[in-house]
């Protein structure tokens, strides 16, 4: 078995050499990758697109943008008031379709932070996936597409370690883990 092991390791090194032989400025054709699989990648896209389409619903691109919600406290009220005012309007009912995605802009004022991330129940609370971008005025923001008709819990993570609730959200919730999280309903 030892000599077999040696052969296998030599083959492993040869696979590295083969890749190097193609040159650093060329990508490797996918079918030649060590863990490549001609069918798996394609099959996965099929499944991913099914999930994407169920998010997008029957809507085309333009309607998503119309439903932006802002994170500042005044804006919450204003938006709510606006919705209340036109609640029975046919226009509102037309663009708010059940199940279609909304674009939500999460904003945090943190001029002294070096990084801000959004961690939420819709991404398994990963603090290194949705990175906010800093604007010159010190506010950080990110826009995310989320399905309507549901509520979401979230936190901002400052500098990779401080988990904070959204100061602009109406009310914080005890997360049972010693912290406070925010909730938004779409």
């Amino acid at each position, binding site marked *: 078995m030892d000599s077999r092991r040696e052969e296998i390791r030599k083959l492993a090194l040869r696979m*590295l050499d083969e890749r190097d032989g193609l040159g*650093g400025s060329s990508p490797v054709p996918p079918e030649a990758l060590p863990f490549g699989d001609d069918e798996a990648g394609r099959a996965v896209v099929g499944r991913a697109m099914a999930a994407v389409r169920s998010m997008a619903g029957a809507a085309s691109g333009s309607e998503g943008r119309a439903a932006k919600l802002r994170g500042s406290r005044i804006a919450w009220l204003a938006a709510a008031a606006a919705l209340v005012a036109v609640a029975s309007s046919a226009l509102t009912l037309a663009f708010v379709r059940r199940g279609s995605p909304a674009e939500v802009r999460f904003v945090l004022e943190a001029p002294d932070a070096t990084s801000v991330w959004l961690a939420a129940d819709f991404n398994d609370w990963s603090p290194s996936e949705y990175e906010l971008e800093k604007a010159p005025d010190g506010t950080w923001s990110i826009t995310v597409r989320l399905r309507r008709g549901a509520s979401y819990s979230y936190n901002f993570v400052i500098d990779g370690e401080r988990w904070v609730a959204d100061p602009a959200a109406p009310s914080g919730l005890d997360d049972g883990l010693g912290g406070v999280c925010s909730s938004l309903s779409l």
Partner: protein
Amino acid sequence: MNPCYFLLAMRVDDETLAARAKDGDERTFEELALRYSDRLYAFCRARLGSENDAKDSTQDALVRAYRSLPSYDSSKTWFARVFSIAANRVKSRYAAASSAERLAVRAAAERAIADEAVADVSGPEAEALRALAAEELRSAVAGLPASLRSPVELYYFAGLDVASTAAALGLGIEAVKSRLLRARRRLGRILGDTAQPDGRKKGM
């Protein structure tokens, strides 16, 4: 075709597609996804060691990439983002090589080639041999420090070129080249050292 020209053409196309997909065009997103799904899958498979897990993670990464399109900044390359999403998905599952499922696959592959000469380069035995070699690579790469592991995964397992690897990691090209060189040397030691039965113990 001049590789540089090919690379440039590919780059511009990705960003154009991503910008169009950002407006909500799912078909465009699907095109983008198809461009990278093979590499994404290979990348995840190299990390996770299981085909089903790799498929789940790849699908997951694509859906999340779609979700975060609204905040896509076209000055950053699209695939850099999707690979970092994928890396994040598989990060917590980079389990030790000795899980039951992988042992079973390994044992099966070893059985398949037990009585065959190594020189036989065709047929299912050769495939099984390559699969075992790939597993050895996985194992060896798993033992590398994270700073060396990431460029290796993108360059060797996902098969990206140096420039794309650098973009995906947010590093300069020279930095990536130097890390790849160091990683290659370490892997050479781990895999070439036949005195150590378990290469992973060395170089930790």
